[in-house]
């Protein structure tokens, strides 16, 4: 069951439009569909479809407030991925590598 969960999370994250919806919820949590559609170059239909995939992966949760359905960012599965795929392979080394990358890129500027 754990593996199936993570499959859905990886699939849901493998799309730039869906990641941008998560970014929008991170900036402002608890938005309606209308709010989420505002200023996006996506149709309402596309946003609805992407939200359904994010909800199925448990990356987005919803809360009913009166007639409104509010969408919330749910980063819990991302922490499970972090533990399974990052922590396990030694976070220390990764930090060292990203620091090296940062230093090298700084030198290019």
């Amino acid at each position, binding site marked *: 069951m754990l593996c199936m969960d993570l499959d859905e999370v990886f699939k849901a994250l493998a799309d730039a439009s869906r990641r941008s919806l998560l970014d929008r919820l991170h900036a402002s949590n*608890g938005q309606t569909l209308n709010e989420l559609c505002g200023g996006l170059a996506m149709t309402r239909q596309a946003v609805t479809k992407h939200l359904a995939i994010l909800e199925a992966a448990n990356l987005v949760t919803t*809360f009913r407030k009166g007639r409104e359905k509010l969408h*919330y960012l749910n980063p*819990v599965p991302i*922490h499970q991925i972090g533990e399974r795929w990052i922590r396990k392979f030694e976070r220390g080394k990764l930090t060292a590598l990203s620091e090296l990358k940062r230093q090298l890129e700084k030198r290019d500027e």
Partner: protein
Amino acid sequence: MSKPEFVYVTYIETTPEKLWEALTVGDFTERYWFGLRISSDWEAGSPYIFTRHGAISLEGNVLVSEPCTRLVYTWIPLSPETKHERISRVTFDLEPRGKVIKLIVTHDHLDEGGETRRDISDGWPMVLASLKSFLETGHALEIDPPCAVTREAAYA
């Protein structure tokens, strides 16, 4: 009614009884919740406290206690950075879904732009991922406490 600031959901392969114990018994919270021990008699209206290394980190009052179904408590951080903020509220809803329990954690009444709001947005996803791992595998996640936890313990 204002909208809640955070709504977190996790699905855990366990029983409502075990999940309730994991949320309310200090011996369990200590193992998956940044080393914090919770204690209370879990009667509505009673106080509860979280301690870490014997010092109080967080306190509040039990608002609703329906074993294995629903737990609501106030959340009063004690550090100097947060004590001017209003008292917020945490709700745990346990909903059985076949072999798993859907745990919904709602945190509301948080100050806009407050320290607590920032701290808990880091903390809850870690705690809930760790709780799920603890109940399903017997091992909590190796998570570092957010600085708020160590800071509050130091000032309490």
